Structures are given as structure tokens and as C-alpha cells.
């Protein structure tokens, strides 16, 4: 079944009206992921945009057609591990899924997620990484790129300031847990995302982790209609490479042999507008270094078969 047939025919598992910002690509990601996973799923959405826009429900009503939980920011993965144990005890099977932002994954929820990865609890964890705490007004997270304006890393009139540290290379950190499936995805490559969710569903032992890079329109300062094209530029400039790893066996799923200049991407985003050529070059160097590392581990094959 092609991705188009699947998305055209499957039922949407999310409420038709959720109050995500106009053009939000996280809304697109959530609907796509849940169409692929289908009705036999249990969803957990910790505090973050997708909780805030009403997917976890409002006034006794639910925002999804599958059971949906609203765990704490820091215990999503552990809670789902418990749900899996309960299902196993009852002899039932369902997809146990987290849909969490980068704050609940890379920052506060990291210990719980790392624990689940190490113990080998069978859950699907999807992180939508928009580089910050968006629904509370864009505070920095440890995923935010260096130089970014955020409300907690302000920029002076002279263009000085912005975040002082690089963001974590989080999908790589998860891959180094030796889990059965880790993938990166982008809302601009929907057929690729659909296939990766299908791969995650095939994992019968241990954690499947998918890291989706979602440029945030409101927080980053991007025009609504450029929602998808900016996400695509992040891939085409090698800023966010798309790959998958099975027990450390890496494969780049969307190779970028001739990257576009990073300025094509950063110039479309207001949070980078104060950066001069030197600070852009710094971001570019890190992106290139991470891509070279990825190519090296992919070419070598590595890992266990």
C-alpha cells in the first residue's frame, strides 16, 4: 500500500478540530502517525503543544479516538512501560505510543526514556522536536540550536546574544542505547515517515524511537505556507539528516550528496535573523561534522547483524 493510498483511506484517529497554530506541521505529523498506527493504540501525550491544543481532551471530552493519557513531563516513558506490563499480564496486545515534545524527551523525560531503552520495554516513542518549550512561549531547551533567539536567550539590538550552546544530537544518543529501532523523520518527507512508523510497529522486543524535526511557525518566525518547505530545507542543507538505525546498524534513508547552502534554510527563519556569516558558519560546521560521522558509521555497516 502506498503512503498516499494509506493516508487517503485510513480513518483519522485525532479530533478534526484541534487548535494547533495555522499550518502547524506537528499536527500533520500526529495525524499521519496515528493513521498508520490505527485504532489498536494507546496514546500518551505529555504537557506540550499537542497536549495543549486539545488532543488529550477538554471538559470531559476526548481529542482522540484512541485512549489518550496526559502523563507528567518527566514520566511518559515509564508510565507506558507500566501500561505494557499490564497489557502483557492481561494477554492483550496494542501499540503503546508516546507522542512527546523535545522538552518531555530531550530534557525532563530523558531519564525515564533512557531507562525504558535500557530495560527493553516494548513501546513506540515519537518525539516531535521543535527546539523548545513552545506552548509556554518558546523557552530554550537542550535541543535548541546554537545562536537561536528564544524568550530565555534574548538578542540585543546589536544582534548579540541567542543561545550559547549547541543542541544535543538526540537521535544519535538514542541509537547508542542499542535499541532495536531508531529513526529520524521530517514532516516534509511523509512517505518516509509512514514507512518508519510501519517499521517501528514491527518491533516486538524493546523500544522503537522516532525523532521528528518540526520547525515551529509561531516560535521560530516562519510563514504558515512555508511550514513544509522550511522542514524540507533542514534536510536538504544536511542540518537534520534522515536515517534509521537498528541495533547500531545505520542507514541514511534520504542521502544528501549535494547540500544546499545553510543560508537557504536559516534565512527563512526569524529566530536566526540576527546571525552573521560567522555564526551561520559555526552551525554549518557542526551540521557537516554530524553528517560526516553519520556517513562513516553507515558506510562501515557496524553493529550487530
Amino acid at each position, binding site marked *: 500500500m502506498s*503512503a*498516499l493510498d494509506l*493516508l*487517503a*483511506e485510513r480513518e*483519522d484517529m*485525532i*479530533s*478534526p*478540530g*484541534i*487548535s*494547533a497554530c*495555522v*499550518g*502547524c*506541521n506537528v*499536527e*500533520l505529523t500526529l*495525524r499521519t502517525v496515528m493513521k498508520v498506527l490505527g485504532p489498536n493504540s494507546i496514546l500518551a501525550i505529555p504537557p506540550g503543544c499537542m497536549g495543549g491544543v*486539545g488532543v488529550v*481532551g*477538554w*471538559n*470531559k*471530552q*476526548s*481529542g*482522540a*479516538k*484512541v*485512549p*489518550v493519557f496526559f502523563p507528567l513531563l518527566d514520566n511518559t516513558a515509564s508510565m507506558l512501560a507500566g501500561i505494557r506490563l499490564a497489557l502483557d499480564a492481561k494477554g492483550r496486545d496494542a501499540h503503546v505510543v508516546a507522542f512527546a515534545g523535545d522538552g518531555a524527551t530531550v530534557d525532563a523525560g530523558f531519564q525515564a526514556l533512557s531507562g525504558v531503552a535500557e530495560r527493553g520495554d516494548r513501546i513506540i516513542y515519537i518525539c516531535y522536536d521543535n527546539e523548545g518549550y513552545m506552548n509556554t512561549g518558546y523557552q530554550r531547551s537542550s535541543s535548541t540550536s546554537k545562536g537561536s533567539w528564544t524568550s530565555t536567550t534574548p538578542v540585543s539590538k546589536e544582534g548579540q546574544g541567542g543561545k550559547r550552546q549547541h543542541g544535543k544530537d538526540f537521535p544519535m544518543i538514542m541509537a547508542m542505547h542499542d535499541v532495536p529501532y531508531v529513526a529520524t523523520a521530517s*514532516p*516534509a518527507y*511523509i*512517505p518516509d515517515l509512514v514507512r518508519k512508523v510501519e517499521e517501528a510497529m514491527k518491533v516486538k522486543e524493546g523500544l522503537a524511537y522516532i525523532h521528528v524535526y518540526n520547525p515551529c511557525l509561531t516560535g521560530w518566525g516562519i510563514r*504558515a*505556507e*512555508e*511550514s*513544509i*518547505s522550511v522542514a524540507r530545507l533542514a534536510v536538504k542543507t544536511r542540518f537534520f539528516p534522515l536515517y534509521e538505525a537498528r541495533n547500531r546498524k545505520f542507514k541514511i534513508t534520504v542521502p544528501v550528496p549535494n547540500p544546499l547552502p545553510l543560508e537557504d534554510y536559516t534565512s527563512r527563519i526569524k529566530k536566526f535573523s540576527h546571525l552573521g556569516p560567522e555564526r551561520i558558519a559555526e552551525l554549518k560546521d557542526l551540521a557537516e561534522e554530524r553528517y560526516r560521522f553519520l556517513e562513516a558509521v553507515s558506510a562501515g555497516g557496524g553493529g550487530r547483524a
Partner: protein
Amino acid sequence: MSTLEKDYVCPVGEGIYAANTGDWRTQRPEIDQEKCSRCGTCLLYCPTNSVRRVEGRFVIDLGYCKGCAVCAAECPKQCIAMIREGRK
């Protein structure tokens, strides 16, 4: 309650929560069916799942469409026009 909502059965709570996001729209997409190549890019990338495939053609269900213009920007044939909405 629209027909779309009636289709929805919730496992928990009293029903489905659906904000009337169609009311946010300041512009609406219109597909030129003559120019459309039926590739389905609009359906793949619509954030609100407002594009339907009906007998091979792609049509827009405006009920919850927020008018973000992602479909118009992504269409490879550029056959989707954004029309300014009048007063409701």
C-alpha cells in the same frame, strides 16, 4: 453536530472535543481540477486532514480547514489558488 463528528466514537469521556477551526480561516483553497495531475501532494501535506480523495479526484472539505495555504505552496502543478474569505 456535523456528520464527521457523528462518525467518531470515543473510548473515554463524553464525546469528541472539536474546536471549530474552520472559523479561523481568512483564505480558502480552491483546486483547479483541469490542471490537477492527481498526485495527491495536497492530501499528504494538509496539516488538518482536510483533503479527501473522491473517485480519484482530490477535493477539499472546508469544515475544519484553517486556510494555512500549505497545499497551495506544496502543489507541484501550482493549481491550488487561495481565495480571500468574505465576512461571515
